[in-house]
């Protein structure tokens, strides 16, 4: 036990020393993160990612060995990775993850199409705004999980119910956030369009929609993480497949290491999808990222 603590302490110390050696010359340690981020080169960025991961794993390892009274066994990173490997090779992890992903894709895509469309229209046209905003604001304040019982009554506990929970969980937020994006639009571009002789419809297509896309994508990235939250809420009740179901079963049979694997899988899927959306955004909206860089 003591040997492990020693290893963790050395690891922690090594990480801090590496960070110090890399950054102290550039006075970045004391600088605000927002200002110093752009000054890191690729190597330094990679080091910060690795250091951040190692820091998390080390702290987790230390906590797992403390064994506080009254708390069930906390599996360390090594045990959890072993359980993940077991579930990957012979167990249901990939299958359950695919089912969960499919549910999120369907529920979230439907909410995105409706929410972005409504948000763009309500942000641009006064009449739509007056019709949509009051209702949307009201519905946004109802906790989406409060709809679960109602949805079970209507759809049972089949797939439609899970899509509906995700849909209702994010649609009101997507709509409001897209309205905010449109309202934030630099009005000078509207004037540029007016003096170029654009009609109202052309201003909507050419200025509102095209200029909003990069930030709409950010809205979708933020809400995608919320969609996963609502998926788990839906899967914990009456699901027979999916990561939420894996978590529920692991809890029932006290397979704590598998419970950890289920929970951490969301983090892995989240990071991968977020990076993918970021890459897609940088490819599609080069003009936006060039502007940010300047």
């Amino acid at each position, binding site marked *: 036990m003591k040997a492990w603590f020693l290893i963790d302490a050395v690891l922690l110390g090594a990480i801090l020393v590496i960070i110090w050696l890399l950054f102290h010359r550039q006075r970045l340690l004391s600088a605000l993160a927002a200002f110093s981020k752009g000054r890191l080169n690729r190597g330094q960025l990679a080091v910060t990612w690795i250091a951040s991961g190692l820091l998390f794993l080390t702290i987790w390892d230390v906590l797992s060995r403390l064994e506080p009274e009254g708390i069930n066994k906390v599996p360390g990173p090594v045990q959890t990775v072993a359980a993940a490997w077991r579930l990957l090779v012979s167990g249901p992890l990939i299958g359950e993850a695919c089912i969960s992903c499919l549910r999120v894709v369907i529920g979230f895509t439907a909410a995105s199409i409706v929410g972005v469309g409504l948000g763009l229209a309500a942000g641009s046209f006064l009449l739509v705004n007056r019709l949509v905003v009051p209702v949307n604001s009201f519905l946004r304040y109802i906790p989406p999980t409060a709809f679960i019982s109602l949805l079970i009554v209507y759809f049972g506990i089949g797939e439609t119910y899970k899509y509906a929970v995700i849909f209702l969980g994010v649609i009101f937020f997507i709509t409001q956030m897209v309205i905010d994006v449109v309202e934030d639009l*630099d009005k*000078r*571009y509207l*004037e*540029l*369009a*007016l*003096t*170029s*002789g654009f009609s109202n419809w052309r201003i909507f297509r*050419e*200025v509102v929609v*095209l*200029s909003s*896309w990069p930030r709409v994508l950010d809205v979708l990235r933020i809400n995608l993480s919320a969609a996963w939250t609502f998926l788990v809420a839906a899967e914990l009740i009456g699901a027979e497949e999916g990561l939420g179901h894996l978590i529920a079963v692991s809890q029932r049979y006290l397979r704590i290491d598998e419970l950890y694997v289920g929970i951490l899988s969301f983090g892995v899927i989240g990071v991968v999808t977020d990076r993918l959306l970021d890459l897609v955004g940088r490819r599609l*909206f*080069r*003009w*936006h990222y*060039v*502007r940010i860089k*300047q």
Partner: protein
Amino acid sequence: MPIIELNNVSFGYDSTLVVRGLDLSIDEGQIVSIMGPSGCGKSTVLRLISGLEKPTSGGCVFAGQLLERPSALLRFSFQDYDAFPWRTVRQNLLLGGASEKGDERSFAVDDLLRKIGLADHDRKYPTELSGGMRKRLALGRCLAGKPRVVLLDEPFSSLDADARHEMYSLLQELWAEWHGLMVIVTHDVHEAVLLSHRILVSERAPFRTRGEVDVLFGHPRDESISVTQEYLSVSQRIRELFRVDAR
């Protein structure tokens, strides 16, 4: 017949009067500069001419008709933003050329790209261009589709001296070929004399024409005119109009 007429135009925000009883008449085929002390309402006059602002009283007439809303025939180049950043250089020029169709529009844009020296940068986004290139794009965008009037609000204020001189030549070349009406708001006496046929000087706010000066040099003009007697007397006259305020 004048293409722009402002008849007893007044304009204000809340309780502040920005333009007071302005009468102005401008003919086609010339370059006119509007000058005056900072905050006197020069840019507001330009916005009134473009139809972006509606007068509180009086009327703005464009080509014999009361101006109700902005038109593609009255192009505006704003001080800090010159093109749609989400469109490439070529697309920005295509968006401006509303009066031509299909291939004709594409040829006109090719021609314009060559004239403004951005033929090799047509696939770039405006944010990928230098300050001088962006100003050239702004001029090109204004002239795409051959409008009747181009309004430029302090078009070269952000450029260094070399880039400015380049822009003065380009503007004169483009104007000579197009021959429409250009109205420029500027602070720079040299710029006004070098480019304009007619210079209007305003009082302090609210905007009201204090006097105007005609510049009789032929176009194109270059820096060599700045040593002539005519240039010196015109510049002197403008400075005197400014000085009335300072007293």
